[in-house]
């Protein structure tokens, strides 16, 4: 083990961690927005848009991120849409994540007990009020654990960004290995970096989940 080399690689890994986190949070944020939007469209059964939303959800969930990124990064410039690789990464991640978030939100909404909806109707709430005061707030709370799982999944998926030359953790490792041939050392750093990012994130998400669970179900 070349400790010296490991210590010297710290700045590279820190920077790459920053890149990974920045792009991941961007992607997760937009995924969530897309998921909510699809949720609204589906709930209000907006004609045409609903079919489009359903089609989009299936497309994004049934294809790998890598090919989505390649299409955006290498394919789209050929019809004049030229974007930076970081932007492509965030768009790709949001495209993928939006479908997953939409499914989670749908699941949460379907889980809202019928009695809540019936009670809302009984006191004369309109369809919009029903959505605003009952279905979306309660449905959202019920989908929190799946949304958290999706966030973690998307964070892990950022490792694919290295395929479009973004200097994320995986790519920095590959670069360092090809320069100094210290495979063991840099691989160790790669694994540790991901553990440093993912373990606290996982713990944080399960903490939120527990809080929400306590709020909704009281246990």
């Amino acid at each position, binding site marked *: 083990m070349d400790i010296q080399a490991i210590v010297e690689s710290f700045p590279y890994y820190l920077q790459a961690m920053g890149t990974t986190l920045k792009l991941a949070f961007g992607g997760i944020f937009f995924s969530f927005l897309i998921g909510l939007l699809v949720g609204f469209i589906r709930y209000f059964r907006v004609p045409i848009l609903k079919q489009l939303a359903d089609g989009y959800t299936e497309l994004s969930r049934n294809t790998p991120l890598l090919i989505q990124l390649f*299409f955006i990064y*290498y394919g789209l410039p050929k019809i004049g849409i030229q974007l930076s690789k970081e932007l492509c990464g965030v768009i790709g991640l949001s495209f993928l994540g939006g479908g997953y978030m939409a499914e989670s939100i749908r699941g949460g909404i379907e889980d809202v007990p019928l009695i809540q909806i019936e009670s809302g109707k009984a006191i004369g709430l309109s369809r919009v009020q029903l959505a605003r005061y009952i279905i979306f707030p309660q449905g959202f709370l019920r989908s929190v654990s799946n949304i958290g799982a999706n966030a973690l999944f998307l964070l892990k998926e950022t490792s*694919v960004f*290295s*395929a479009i030359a973004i200097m994320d953790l995986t790519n920095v*490792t590959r670069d360092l290995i090809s320069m100094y041939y210290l495979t063991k050392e840099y691989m160790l750093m790669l694994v540790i970096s991901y553990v440093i990012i993912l373990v606290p994130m996982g713990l944080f998400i399960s903490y939120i989940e527990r809080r929400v669970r306590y709020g909704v179900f009281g246990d």
Partner: protein
Amino acid sequence: MYLGISILWDGNNLGRLLLGLWEAIKIAGVSLGFGIILGTFFGVIRTFPSSLIRIIFRIYLEIFRIIPLLVLLYVFYYILPENFNIDLPNQLVSVLVFILWISAEMSEIIRSSLMSVSKHQIESGKALGFNRLQLYQYVYFPQGIKSAIPSMINLVTRVIKTTSLLMMIGVTEVIRVGQQMIEHYAVTISTAPLWIYGFIFMLYFIVCFPLNMAAKFWERRIGG
């Protein structure tokens, strides 16, 4: 536009792409075959009362859940030949990592589905004088496996989608084949990436969508 899409049936391109897809599906299939068997076995072991076994398998599961698969692929791809002097072909490295990953995920699917069998059923089995093996054979598996099927199908689609990462460690699967074609047409047909990557995108969809539908169908059947 005509020029662009015609790339797909130029020469033997379509056949080559499909062969690339077949390579990916072969790796997924072999890994799933071994992974599901091994994972089922692990899943059963994890329902045993020994806490030592539970902790060991929990650690194994968490490692394969936390670390992104691409990182695991790289670790095996770089470390095996250099530090253990094991020089395997890329496909074999992929299959090895996939089997370990699938078994970890599968063990969790099996464990949770076996644990979902109601206590009442288990107690009744015991009252009838079933031994442990009989309990698994006649009570746990017939009742638990139904709830495992949707998750298993989802695992299959995840594995198929994940084969896309294999090009990163030099396996000539469908995306790598597409890349080679794009390089070949770089000068003559500039829109090649759009059509070829678009086509591969649809190929994955055509393979994974029916599986996803099947999983949803099963879920509804169990639920309703």
